[in-house]
């Protein structure tokens, strides 16, 4: 029996060395994913959501570097484990679903061979046992003719099928936690739903948990239990999907929700751009674009503060805004 599998991230910091200077991609992000939770991490491109996900799984590649923070999974600290220790957890207790299935699958090895490698990485099994395990895993992700898929190669699959194969590989050892990096971005809209239904179905089945990185607020609203909004490498708001979508407290979250196009409504984009991640602002990173910014916002960075019932936000002006925003929207 595998243990509970709670993921706890504290003050995570990731930077990238570039010719222009050090890009501070993740700046002190922290959150907890409890069993049964599906946490959606949202934010615009470059907000550090994917870098956060990679850092958790120890997949940060040079020039990226984890500067600090703790990642704790199931009571063990992952950041200090080293490649060998992490290897035993990845794919076994933590599954990873990547963005593009054709990027993830090996084009030269047969699907069966790849399954066998993944299975043998974590347990002893004969080639025949591996095939049985793989067939079952493929059936579990709704693939009708698993034998044919197993004998074939990645390029013979459709996008949706290939992503099902990736999911089957990532979950073949029944991991407690699944990390998904925009798992449907590369797929047709019609397939996106099926894949998301499939993933969330797998989660709900056995009280597992998931961290899903996405820029699609619709996906968060429909499939997540909790949401973490990131901006310029910082968490700015966290809470249940209901809380954050109904009564967003941070001005960035409010702008993000307002920017979701509605049928018949005009399209409202966000004004301005991300702050300079090399010369990171000392105050609130959103101050430049924020309509409510005052002097204090430019001078001191607002900490992430509890606002009751598991919700947190990082804004100097958050508290007073709740009622007003809710009233304006209704």
């Amino acid at each position, binding site marked *: 029996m595998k243990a509970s599998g709670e993921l706890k991230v504290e003050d995570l910091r990731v930077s990238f060395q570039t010719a222009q200077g050090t890009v501070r991609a993740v700046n002190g992000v922290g959150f907890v994913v409890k069993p049964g939770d599906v946490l959606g991490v949202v934010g615009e491109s470059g907000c550090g959501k994917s870098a956060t996900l990679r850092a958790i799984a120890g997949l940060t590649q040079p020039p990226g570097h984890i500067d600090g923070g703790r990642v704790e999974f199931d009571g063990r600290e992952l950041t200090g484990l080293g490649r060998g220790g992490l*290897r035993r957890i990845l794919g076994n207790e933590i599954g990873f679903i990547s963005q593009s299935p054709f*990027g993830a699958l090996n084009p030269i090895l*047969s699907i069966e061979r790849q399954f066998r490698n993944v299975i043998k990485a*974590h347990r002893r099994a004969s080639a025949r046992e591996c095939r049985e395990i793989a067939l079952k895993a493929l059936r579990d992700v709704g693939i009708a003719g698993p034998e044919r898929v197993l004998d074939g*190669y990645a390029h013979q699959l459709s996008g949706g099928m290939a992503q099902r194969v990736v999911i089957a590989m990532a979950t073949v050892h029944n991991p407690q936690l699944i990390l998904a990096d925009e798992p449907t971005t590369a797929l047709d809209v019609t397939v996106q739903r099926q894949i998301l239904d499939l993933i969330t179905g797998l989660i709900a089945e056995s009280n597992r948990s998931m961290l899903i990185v996405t820029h699609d607020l619709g996906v968060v609203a429909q499939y997540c239990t909790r949401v973490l909004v990131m901006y310029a490498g910082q968490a700015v708001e966290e809470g249940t999907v209901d809380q954050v979508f109904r009564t967003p407290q941070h001005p960035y979250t409010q702008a993000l929700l307002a920017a979701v196009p509605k049928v018949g409504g005009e399209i409202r984009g966000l004004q301005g751009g991300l702050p300079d991640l090399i010369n990171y602002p000392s105050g609130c990173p959103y101050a430049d674009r924020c309509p409510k910014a005052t002097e204090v916002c430019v001078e001191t960075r607002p900490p992430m503060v509890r606002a009751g019932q598991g919700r947190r936000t990082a804004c100097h002006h958050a508290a007073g805004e709740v009622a007003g925003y809710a009233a304006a929207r209704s």
Partner: protein
Amino acid sequence: MRSTLTYALKRLLLVPFMLFLIATLSFLLLALIPGDPAVLIVGEFADQETLARVRADLGLDRPFWEQYLTYLAAVAQADLGQSYLTGTPVMEEIGQRLPNSLVIIIPSLLMAVVVGTVVGTAGGYFRRGPVGKVTSVLISAAQGVPPFFLAIVLIYLLVFTIRMFPVPTGMLYSSMRPPPEVTGVVPLDALLAGQWSVLGAITAHAILPVIATGLFLASYFAKTVRTSVTQAMATPQVEFARACGLPERQVVRYALLTARTSVLTYTAVLFGVMLSATAVVEVVFSWPGIGAWALDGVLKGDLPIIQGFIVVTGGLVIIAYVVLDVLVAALDPRIRH
């Protein structure tokens, strides 16, 4: 598998056509190269009558197209003519010398593939660490030093200073009698006669030229493998392999799979290059190979030798490329299906 076979047959059908093109090209050389072969054979001071007779013997007084057809017919029967200067049949000479060259070229290519893949993989995998820096310097050095220079250094150090290898005077020791002639190919004759001492001598003499050539060739493999592995390590494919908990050596193997095609391609290309480029190393080691012989033919303007060399090496390169194409197709499921 069936489709690979059809593919192979299709490629093979192209070979005669390519050979025809090469034969045509080598014939056209006759028209392009200045000078009169007759003068080359009987000398500048021969009288007009002798010159005319020699020209008639060579068929040079015939119309151009007739000479062309005669040449094609001869090539089709594996007759590449005789050397202007020595009168020996070119085909026979090539048949005896080409295997000697292959004794250097094939082992040095194999050595280059192994050394290059190991060094290139290490360089690509550890590119940010000291290992990467060292391999980078090694690769540039090996690429910058021409094989003949390395050969001279090796001869000085290992032959004349520490006397580890025999003096570079051909394939055999000077005191050694060649094996009884059966095929004319010395290594093969030695094998047929069961003369292991002769084979041992050939091996001892071949080691230095193989190292000199192999290290140079290895730099090219190392470079392409390093680039492929460096790129592959940053792909989502390697990331997913790691995220599935695959052991690191398997992750590297995944990355290396992508380098396979370029290594094969380089093998075929460098094989073609070496057929003529081996000449300099052969000269340094007095190796009775095809390269040194052809170089001599070029310098003396011995046209049948030049033409014969072009046709035979050109044919070998074409065959190497066909083998390459078929191998690549057989190894890559995306082409195979």
